């Protein structure tokens, strides 16, 4: 059995308490949410926090609701909750689609939205989803909260802009009319991380693409985003040519590397193929009669 190095444990009673504990214990303390990323790393002794601050009991962070023009998702929402949320699916079918392909039911029962984003694994799926949806994340600190676009949240593999005593509390997604979304992922086996995955959001107004979001994961796209491809779509009528061009741009502007999931050329090919599939499904869904 793989066993972690010794550590201490504190249970936070509120967001404020969690932040206070993080401050008390300093940089060797770590928040634990679902634990599905942190515990494996601790067992392999790749992570060795001295104190775990458990935020699993902060029900105040467990919600999915519409508030004004935003869909708001609390950091402690479990994968399975997002996967089965009618509210989320009503606005963005991409959630249920992506979630159904994240890990396996055991992991989805515990793993959280906040933990997924904060882990910042380069193959993480929700980062691509929220990138496609152009979401904002809400971060709580000692003296209040700050809000940053998802495109500024990740600073590299396994790193984010979070300070040691900050916690992510919420992700908010703008609500949009005439919008479709979809997720496409290829994995070697169910429960494996993506070889490559693409999330797409397309808004069509008066026959033209007015807004497009394309999120990529596992292929070292800048901030999980295919910006050039997004830009190429805006202002154009939806068409196979537009899709093909965007897909090709997405494949060109990412930077996948070879690993046991596949060689670089294959991953690039997948980005192109999956971008096409995700975009065309998103476009179909954005048609008013469907929405």
């Amino acid at each position, binding site marked *: 059995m793989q*066993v972690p190095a010794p550590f201490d444990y504190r249970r936070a009673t509120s967001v404020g308490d969690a932040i206070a504990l993080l401050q008390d214990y300093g940089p060797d303390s770590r928040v634990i949410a679902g634990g599905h990323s942190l515990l494996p790393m601790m067992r392999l002794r790749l992570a060795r926090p001295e104190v775990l601050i458990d935020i699993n009991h902060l029900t105040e962070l467990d919600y999915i609701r519409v508030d004004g023009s935003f869909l708001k998702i609390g950091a402690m929402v479990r994968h399975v909750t997002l996967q089965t949320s009618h509210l989320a699916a009503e606005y963005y079918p991409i959630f249920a689609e992506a979630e159904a392909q994240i890990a396996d039911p055991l992991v989805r029962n515990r793993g959280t939205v906040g933990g997924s984003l904060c882990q910042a694994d380069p193959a993480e799926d929700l980062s691509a989803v929220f990138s496609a949806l152009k979401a904002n994340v809400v971060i709580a600190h000692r003296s209040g909260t700050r809000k940053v676009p998802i495109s500024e949240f990740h600073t590299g593999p396994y790193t984010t802009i979070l300070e040691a005593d900050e916690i992510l509390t919420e992700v908010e997604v703008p609500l949009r009319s005439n919008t479709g979304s979809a997720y496409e992922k290829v994995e070697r*086996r169910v429960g494996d991380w993506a*070889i490559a995955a693409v999330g797409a959001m397309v808004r069509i107004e008066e026959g033209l693409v007015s807004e497009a979001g394309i999120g990529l994961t596992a292929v070292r796209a800048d901030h999980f985003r295919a910006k050039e491809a997004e830009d190429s779509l805006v202002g154009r009528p939806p068409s196979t040519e537009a899709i093909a061009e965007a897909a090709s741009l997405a494949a060109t502007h990412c930077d996948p590397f*070879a690993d046991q999931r*596949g*060689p670089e050329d*294959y991953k690039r090919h*997948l980005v192109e193929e999956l971008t096409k599939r995700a975009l065309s499904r998103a476009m179909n869904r954005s048609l008013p009669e469907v929405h």
Partner: protein
Amino acid sequence: MTDVKDKPDGVGFGRVIRKEDARFVRGKGSYIDDIVLPGMLHGAVLRSPYAHAKIISIDTSVAEKHPKVKAVITGALLETLNLAWIPSLSHDVIAVLATDKVRYQGQEVAFVIAEDRYSARDALELIEVDYEVLPAVVDAKRALDPGMVVIRDDIENKKDNYIFDWGSGDEAATEAVFEKADVIVEQDMLYPRVHPAPMETCGAIADMDPISGKLTIYCTTQAPHAHRTLYALVAGLPEHKLRVYSPDIGGGFGNKVGIYPGYVLSVVGSIITKRPVKWVEDRSENLMSTSFARDYHMKGKIASTRDGKILGLRVDVLADHGAFNNTAQPTKFPAGFFHVFSGSYDMEAAYCSVKGVYTNKAPGGVAYACSFRVTEAVYAVERMVDRLALELDMDPADLRMKNLLRPEQFPYTSPTGWEYDSGEYPRALQLAMDIAGYEDLRKEQAEKRANGELMGIGLSFFTETVGAGPKKHMDILGLGMADGCEVRVHPTGKAVVRLSVQTQGQGHETTFAQIVSEVTGIPVADVEVIHGDTDNTPFGLGTYGSRSTPVSGAAAAVASKRIVEKARLIASAMLECSPDDLEWTTGRWQVKGDPSAGKTIAEIALAAHANLELPEGVEGHLDASCVYDPPNLTFPFGAYICVVDVDPGTGKVKVRRFIAVDDCGPRINPMIVEGQVHGGLADGVGMALMESIPFDEDGNCLGGSFMDYLLPTSLECPSWETGETVTPSPHHPLGLKGVGESATVGSPPAVVNAVLDALKPFGVKHADMPLTPAQVWRAMQGRPMRTDLAIQ
């Protein structure tokens, strides 16, 4: 769900619920890690981070000062006990703890014994090892290149990484056949390194009683008796003071045949600390350091006439054995039974050569449900037959039908000297094709191809080679491959059967009770199976290579028959008639012509223990034993058909259907047979599509966790469609052939043939396993990858 109700009388063969399930489904099994002994300590192994490095120094002083550490063992200490190296299963040696060099990543370097497993692990980090890193030999194809670093410089005068050359068959005759052939097809293929990955990893508890000198080793072993004898031989421990006890085992698949350093270290640890020492490896340790399987680079060459009569087959193998030659196989056969590679086909000549080399990878081999390399052999021939079909533009089913051995050819002597016992091959293939609806599938495929959709249909026909083996041909480290069995009927007619083999989940507690029941008529529920404990069972070589039913099952049948014969004599005394006047009906001897006069086995058992005056020469009690030396191997066979759909845009393979017709002779418990087949088919899908342990150029193992070494889940497996034919073995007392590994042996080529059939429109002829999405896509581009090396 399988219907288990068709066995109302509870006697003999048939679908009965597994006896062991009552405890397993309640979580009441008792595995190594469930066993807790008073005063027990915990061991942990420090492993090499490098594939090849000289050990300059090891400093254990800080670790020893850890308040909960009891001892730290290094190779230097083992050297003083003459235990730093132990014999391998293939006439080589393996290091228990490295003394001079580490030779693969994950090799054992030191052993910490502490009060609890957390402290043991913590203390590992306190050991300082100074390594001088050496270049690693990773690519087996380059292991013999001039100037290559020598891995085994512990062997005197060793100047290269060569292990052995071995061949079988008539090379000249085979070459002559190639001379006259119309068509010759050649294909290089790799059966990549895979791992058995049992759910339970390996472990042991050694408990040396300092007063009596008795050493009990609780251990995850498939072969408790062989282990006991090896400990006695290697460590000079008196065999009567050694007890090997194998509790419930969570899967073996060959992984638990050999003796691992961790077991030996637990023993040494218990002797040093005078307390029981438990060692249980973690998942990565299991994947990185214990017996792998396969790793055969094969060059196949097949010859035929223009109209598809196969004439000959040649396969030249480069075998990667890792850092120590530790494959488990009968002494005479360094490549196991690979030379059964002519498979199920009638051909004039065949020849194979096998060259073994050392690399900086974990040692082992031949583990994983392979029947001593029959898996590689079947893969080779079944791929070659498909390659030939492609070349001849013939349907692979037609080509197989045309060349399968015919029933009248049995017993059949293969070009390399095997004597196949019995078979009706065309019948099995036809049945599989009927279940599949083969013609309709081909039609559907043609329609799909016209639309650019990729559908593939793959076949394989395998001949298994199990039940090792006749003592005159086979031994492991000098121990003949016969197995003992003892059956005892208690005074009240209940029975106990003691076995030398050890179940790892196959259901022996049920099937062996059924064998005794079938012969004696004692209800299955009334037969208790005892196994896994060397103090309480007769000697034998254990469970692997699908040998339990063919060897130990035969021993149980013969012993049971002896019981029935003895019962006859006792019944004749009871009924005051001649034994010749008695006839056997299930569970009862009765007077011929007078069925009302008879004695049941229970009545006879009571009489045998009571004051009945027994006939001359008959001792009391009702028991018997047998040591079964099989006259020949058994040859189960089967026809498999796999249907896949491939996503042309992503290369992702979906196994849509899998049809498996197995012939293992009569089925003791059809439900258990189907379970074995289901598991083996899942294994096959795993190997064909996702399992592999490649190494990067520094020799880092890239398959060392379940995030890297992918096993199939139910979502990758279709609903299996099974069928059966029954061709009894003429020499097994009950006609049984064994089935444990059939599906693992037979299924990978069916899946691979199906995927490659799907890719036919792209002109793809071959791509090596595992056929991951990336590999399939690369094959479609005409650039399949090597799957033994890191993806570049």
